[in-house]
């Protein structure tokens, strides 16, 4: 057992201080120490994108980052997107309406990647969506319903912002 390192980070708006082993991945830290189990692990080698979260506003694969590297950062996971107050985020609503999920295991990673995309680019075209979502694997949907959901979410967010 190596010595624990103290870190401080903000997750979904809540500040946390914790002691972690240097080797603990950020994903494992969020899941086991903060009990934020909405972030799922699909491959643990950085290909499938299922563990995607936002660190300081940018999408990262939380399986490839160590918790100690997140010291001082601001993190958003799927738990911070919507639902805590019983209300869903428009991206989540669009996923329901367009049947953008089946088993739902890869979905948190998609939601976060799409959240980042729409934050930067409120009305992306197909090519821009494919460019971003090419880093996310889904085995159930065949992606077409996810593509429809992104367009629908963009329209919802646009209407809400207008």
């Amino acid at each position, binding site marked *: 057992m190596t010595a624990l390192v103290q870190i401080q980070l903000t997750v979904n708006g809540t500040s946390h201080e914790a002691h972690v082993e240097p080797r603990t991945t950020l994903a494992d830290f969020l899941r086991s120490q903060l009990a934020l189990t909405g972030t799922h692990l699909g491959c643990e080698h950085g290909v499938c994108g299922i563990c995607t979260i936002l660190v300081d506003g940018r999408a990262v694969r939380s399986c490839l980052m160590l918790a100690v590297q997140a010291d001082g950062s601001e993190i958003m996971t799927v738990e911070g997107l919507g639902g805590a107050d019983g209300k869903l985020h428009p991206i989540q609503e669009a996923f329901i309406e367009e049947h953008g999920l089946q088993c739902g295991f890869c979905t948190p990673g998609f939601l976060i990647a799409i959240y980042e995309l729409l934050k930067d680019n409120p009305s992306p075209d197909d090519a821009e969506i494919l460019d971003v979502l090419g880093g996310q*694997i889904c085995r159930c949907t065949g992606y077409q319903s996810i593509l429809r959901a992104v367009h629908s979410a963009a329209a919802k967010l646009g209407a809400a912002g207008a």
Partner: protein
Amino acid sequence: MTVEIPKSIEELPTSEARWVGKRTRRKEDAALLTGRTRFIEDLVLPGMLHCAILRSPFPHARIAKLDTSEASAQAGVVAVVTGEDALRWSQPAASAPEGWGTHCIASELVRFVGEPVAAVAATSRYVAEDALERIIVDYEPLEAVGDPFAAMEAESPLVIAEKGTNVMMQRLFTWGEVDQAFADAAHVFTEKFRWNRLGANPTETFGAVCEWDPMNLELTVHGSIQAPSFFALGRAATFGLPSNKVNVKSQAHGGSFGGKGGTRGTDIACMLSRKAGGRPVKWIEDRMEYLTSGGSQAWDRHYEVSLAVAGDGQVTGLRVKLVDDQGATGEGYAAISAAKPLAAFTGPYTIPVAEYDLTLVATNKLPAFPYRGFGPPPHFFVLEQMMDIAARSLEIDPAEFRRRNFIQPDQFPFTIPSGNEYDSGNYEEVLDQALSLAGYQELRREQAEAREAGRIVGIGVASAVEPGVFDWNAYRSVGVPGIGVPEGATVSIDILGMITVRVGFSLEGQGQYTLASQLVADYFGTDIDAVRVVQLDTQSAPPSFGPGGSRLGVAITGAVLGACERIREKMCAVTAVLMQTEPDQIKLRDGKFGIPGVPEASMTVAEVAGTMLARSDLLPPGVDPRPEATHVWTAAGRTEPDEQGRAKSYLTAAQAVHVVMVEIDRDTGFVEILKYCLADDCGTRLNPMVVQGQTEGSVAQGIGAALFEEYVYDADAQPLTATFMDYLIPTINEIPPTEKAEVVTPSPFTPLGAKGCGEGAIHTTPAAVMCAVNDALAPLGTMAREVPAAPNRVWNLIRATQS
């Protein structure tokens, strides 16, 4: 009591169905979208330990020395198990064919890369993996065999020496006068094909939390398990436990597609729990374990196929010779994938006679498991290539060639040579819809222009049948017993009229809890949100198999509607007493029990339920006061297989036609899909949104199969595809949009006329894409006989034509 289950949506006791047959949003989704659904990796029990498994790096070796003492002494390690424990505490895995299973941990020999040799339970996964590095194993490598033809040679090393052979099963099925048909045929076409290993790869790997109760000798397993009751029986057999001492609770899980696997890891975690005095032990398979050592691999096939064709283009006979590489053991029941084509051997065609020469061979590769569609997708790939070879030779358009051979609507129910009966269909209509959607003639003109311009462009038109509602009798020929697959549901109405459905399977992605709610809401005239669905474990649930073999949508519809019918009968009896009439005078309609034509005689479902539970003084004597019923549905009319394996097995036959246009890059061999259209007929669509999702998802898996996915082994049976960098799952960039048309020919044999459709397009997509690839390559004088048609293969084919 006989229960009549409505055969169409119109027969439901409602003026107009609000949910069944409609695009109904899934009640599963909100929890999944907010990260609140608990998957197995999220489950934490008091005192829980974490398991890590040490695996063989050799495909075949003798274990000369195994020393776990240093690992056992490591801080945080609570238990270590080895092959000795497996020999002491467990039986070899159940298998198909029978007798080809081994223990969950190797003790003397390892037979494939990734076979467990020891395992550790520790306070965290990190600590458990540390301990694996302290286990010393000396291996003496032995000659391995990774090729099924080599494995059949007399001098081949034996995978399981006691068997005396690597041939697990050899069987010739003959259906009709096949020799005569081929002797009489105007044309006979023969070709060889290779379908390489691929597999399920759900985004969540397998996981389990196992608890061994040392006092009561009971076992509890929580896990990401596709078929909990079948899994429970397997564990009881492995540990010699009475079946009522094993309780399995499946968690919501991240897909299965038949290839969830997990039996070895579960058994190892169970033994670790036993050694740790009953503390729960969690085992989560990681992706590299899944890819090299899990339920990940299926369909490793070598085909030789012959088609007999008359001068007018009628196909008069089909011969299929299959050598199927099962890997090291039969523990994955992959043999059933080789047997399943019997359920749809001749596809959508009236081919009158057929022969299946089937050989299952053991090699030192990972034991094969099922995958979506089980066996027919490769079978239809070869059948459809043969149809195109014949059509091309006879200079008949491939769409027209198929039309001439389709089973006609008035021929249903239609018994195919291999014995199964197709329920209904309108194959020409499906073909016409697909061709019209694609603008087939215009597409052919575009192709001609593209060829003029020197491009390599092809169009595939393929059709396949999806056997739906699997039955065990389909697998009798590979040693699996049983006829019928019961599925039960309990529907309960409480004192305030709120309705709960209890089922024996967990969430997997196909929207079955929503379907159960749709059915109950329309049956009793409630809002869908008022219906709750609860999952029971295997010791509490009615008989249940769960999802698999495109069956659960039909089966759970039968179970839920059967339970509703039983409740209706009870409620009619109670209402009749209250309304002073006979039960047969009482009708349920739009959520009210009453006497037709007497408007004042009306009680809501809630009022009747409340009366039953709170006004015993009003009830007729001897009445069962529970507004609750269980119904266990099983397909009627299934038969015992004859000596040639012929039986009425799968209850339904959905059908599809896909039209695909591809372009091949001459310089790279990359296949790009330019257009994808499909029409299909799966009877009544209970939730069209979910059916569409299943179709789109299975098209994507079919494209992966045709073009990208392959488990590669070197000549010594060493796996080379251990990560998602090597095993290529299609991303959104590889999957084109699909245009879709629907034909609805209800099944006459099922609840509401629905047909099994969960496995869906994977039956047709690989065939259609490969037909398009070969249509593109035909003018070059070459043909792709191997799946996937990856760039290296296609590039080599093109280059060979230029030399």
